[in-house]
């Protein structure tokens, strides 16, 4: 089951739309477990280290093989590599049970129906992306796949939230093999 916990307030209609999308794409039960407080301390220069925040995020009651998605509005940073630090849209423990998504990099939500709809689609896309990592999915070269890197220059302005055939089949295999 996928459980969503919000570390920053999120519009209830957006949450409902996100739950529906995740349920449809992964074929798993999905629910919003509620709002949790952002852990105190740990933020440097107004931004959190993604791994630290994910480790410090409050406990959520669940069962084995549950996947937890934390959503926050706080900006996140990642450790730098040999070529620098990549932009952070979220972070997931690869093959694990916890993922974190930030709204900081998202485009403005706007007030029109069209802009809100586009924002929800992008939110769903990023949520599918980080949860996909929990199912052992790597980044995908297909720009239409939700597993394509979020910062890729090839990504269109309104990317799709669905998975490509390869990623979908791989995630379905992993879900079938899950213990519970």
């Amino acid at each position, binding site marked *: 089951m996928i459980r969503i916990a919000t570390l920053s307030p999120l519009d209830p209609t957006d949450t409902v739309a996100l739950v529906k999308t995740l349920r449809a794409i992964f074929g798993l039960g999905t629910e919003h477990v509620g709002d949790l407080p952002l852990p105190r301390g740990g933020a440097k220069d107004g931004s959190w280290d993604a791994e630290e925040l994910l480790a410090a995020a409050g406990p959520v009651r669940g069962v084995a093989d549950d996947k937890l998605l934390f959503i926050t509005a706080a900006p996140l940073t990642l450790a730098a*590599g040999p070529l620098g630090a990549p932009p952070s849209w979220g972070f997931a423990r690869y093959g694990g049970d916890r993922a974190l998504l930030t709204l900081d990099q998202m485009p403005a939500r706007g007030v029109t129906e069209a802009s809100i709809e586009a924002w929800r689609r992008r939110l769903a896309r990023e949520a599918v992306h980080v949860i996909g990592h929990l199912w052992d999915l790597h980044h995908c070269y297909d720009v239409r796949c939700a597993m394509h890197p979020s910062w890729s220059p090839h990504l269109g302005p309104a990317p799709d939230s669905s998975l490509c055939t390869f990623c979908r089949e791989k995630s379905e295999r992993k879900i079938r093999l899950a213990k519970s």
Partner: protein
Amino acid sequence: MRGQPPRHPDDPKAELSELEGTIADASALKPGDRLVYPAQGVCVVVGPETQEIAGHRLEMVRMRREEDGAAVLVPRGKVASVGLRRVASAELMEGVFHYLAADLADPELNWKIRHRDNADRMVAGGVLGIAEVVKGLHALSRLRPLPTKERGQFDNARHLLVAEVAASLGVSPGLAEDLIDFALMPPAGTRFKLKPPPKPILLPSRPPRRRLVVDDEGDGLDDLGLDELGIEGLGEEAAVEGGAEATGDAAEGDGADASEGVEAPVTGASPAQASGAPLKLVPALAAAVKAAVKPAAAAKKGPAPKKAPARPAKAPAKAAAKKASGKPAGKPATKKKTAKPSATKGGKKK
């Protein structure tokens, strides 16, 4: 920048320089060492172990794959040959990132060569070889979608690279993948100060595949007992002569004559045979001839043997007769047409 590194043309495998960190001796392994097992991933040495397998006592090295805890047992004597190596150093890993971020102008387009070389790189190429596979297939994916098999290979290579980058840099696999893709697909406006990438991996040369020709492959007729049957005209030379004549006639006539084909011997169609080269029957054909001749051999004991006419000799005779009569070439074709009225009526049967 450079394209896919070419396969080394001449050097045999033994003469290629060893990869950095390759384990040459099992005694160098200590419990807790982190190693990379080619095509399997990062493993941790648990320790030496003795196992009795099929009555033999074998000294093994037990390892545990970090990804899923799977047990890996390698005989001590084979540690050097399986390609175990230590996790790449930070300097080598930096070179790998500079290679990933460099432009790749010309991915290999021949899928056979590409797939074979990529498979070799993943096993024997070290971390740079895996990075070459990832980069090459990624560059190709920008041109066209990868076929299913290579899509799987790309995913496997990426999986191995992520695991080794994570182990080498001491970061989580999720971050390692972000770092790799940051180098492969930098965001718009990002520019790297790149150093010259490391030298490409030299792959072991493979000898070209040759078709094995057995010397007595074409001598199957010796075992058929044709002499006992009194068949003298079906020797190799007779068949070749008939074939050569038929070929010559067919070449002289027009296309319709040549394509009449059913009665013309197929074996005589090659120019090598027409020039007198020995005829070689494929084993299946020889077996078929043998099976056809067996009943005749059984009947030999009764009445006096009749001389069976050599079949290939029919064709030259018929072709010569056709020439002499001067019939138009298309006539047999028209006969065939008239012979199938039901086919032209759209399947209506009366």
